[in-house]
């Protein structure tokens, strides 16, 4: 008797195991971030398939639920190969996978995170990918239970002209109410409240905003640093 399931997934990280095997960490739609052994995953054919960011169909089986288990994987969309020649998009893909790998708990369903990551990977083909990346991290925070409340100003209750986020509460603050404390508040890019695409400076603000809360609520309590790939992405928008 064995346990098995099939699911849609995105490859988050891969580690070589032995000479031709690999341990793949996948973000699945219904089973969350789930590792498994892929026989031949470190070999010639498996390496192309098991690239971070690739959308796959995965079949997992093990004798007991708590075991590592083994995956059989088929490629659905080769997102990694599509962005390899584009340094910015490749950095974003690597950052998205690294942040998912670092923040999502293992074997805990997070379907909203899966949907957000899949949407971001699809958006890599468009020019709107930087804004969608920030939305992916916002969705990740929300799905992990640390969502930001950007519906109205924490001080005045107004829903317009929101320009800051309180680092203490994660609630939006209007420009007027936040003016006296603007140095201590986090900038809220307009595209997060009004939709549309953000300019480079707004993307930078968005990345700083999500990084602050991911670090405070998820990474720091686990004594983990921000993944280097995510830091490199933020660096691209700083310059």
């Amino acid at each position, binding site marked *: 008797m064995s346990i098995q399931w099939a699911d849609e997934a995105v490859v988050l990280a891969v580690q070589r195991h032995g000479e031709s095997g690999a341990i793949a960490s996948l973000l699945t739609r219904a089973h969350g971030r789930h590792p498994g052994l892929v026989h031949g995953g470190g070999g010639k054919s498996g390496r192309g398939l098991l*690239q971070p960011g690739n959308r796959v169909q995965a079949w997992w089986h093990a004798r007991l639920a708590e075991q590592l288990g083994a995956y059989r994987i088929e490629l659905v969309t080769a997102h990694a190969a599509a962005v*390899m020649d584009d340094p910015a998009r*490749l950095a974003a893909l*690597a950052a998205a*996978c690294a942040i998912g790998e670092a923040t999502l708990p293992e074997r805990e369903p997070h379907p909203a995170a899966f949907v957000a990551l899949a949407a971001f990977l699809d958006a890599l083909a468009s020019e709107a990918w930087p804004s969608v990346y920030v939305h992916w991290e916002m969705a990740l925070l929300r799905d992990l239970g640390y969502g930001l409340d950007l519906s109205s100003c924490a001080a005045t209750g107004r829903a317009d002209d929101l320009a800051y986020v309180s680092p203490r509460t994660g609630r939006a603050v209007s420009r007027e109410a936040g003016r006296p404390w603007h140095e201590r508040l986090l900038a809220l890019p307009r595209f997060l409240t009004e939709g549309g695409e953000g300019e480079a400076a707004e993307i930078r603000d968005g990345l700083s905003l999500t990084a602050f809360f991911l670090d405070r609520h998820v990474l720091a309590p686990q004594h983990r640093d921000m993944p280097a790939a995510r830091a490199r992405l933020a660096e691209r928008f700083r310059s």
Partner: protein
Amino acid sequence: MVGREIERLIQLLSRLPGLGSRSARRAALHLVEKRDTLLLPLAEALAAAAEKVRTCSVCGNFDSVDPCTICGDPRRESTLLCVVEDVAALWALERSGCFRGRYHVLGGLLSALDGIGPDDLGLPRLAARIGEGAIAEVILATPATVEGQTTAHVVAEHLTPLGVKVSALAHGVPVGGALDYLDDGTISAAVKARRAL
């Protein structure tokens, strides 16, 4: 069943790539049976390699001389520098015989899992080589993986201010490869990198 020395030999052989415990046992038995023609020459070769082989201080290759034979060869193209992940990649390029320039071994790729950052790739050493002025083109021959290409882009960005031409290996259909058997990523890379005939 076997003596301590043979058991140790089997143990060590089984750590080699391509050998498991059963094949290591077979190899050990073969060595012991061919004592004069194989075991002793192999022991001598291993001892000599352990004593003499070192890392080239210029490119990072392994050789018994420093600088290595490639770096010390005046017939090689000194204006071309190929950047590779490791010595295995360098040997693969040498085996092909298609490249007659010089090399630079990074010693790894940017990897979050392995904790390798830009500072671990020896980029200042690479920049110093280029700064000497003889190199006109740097060919980035890192693997066609997310880690490999991320590393290539980081290296390229590091080298751009030095005014040197930076190129990368093409990705696409391998020689003898039928499209039917290729993965979607390779096919899309090949279509993107198509060339006029």
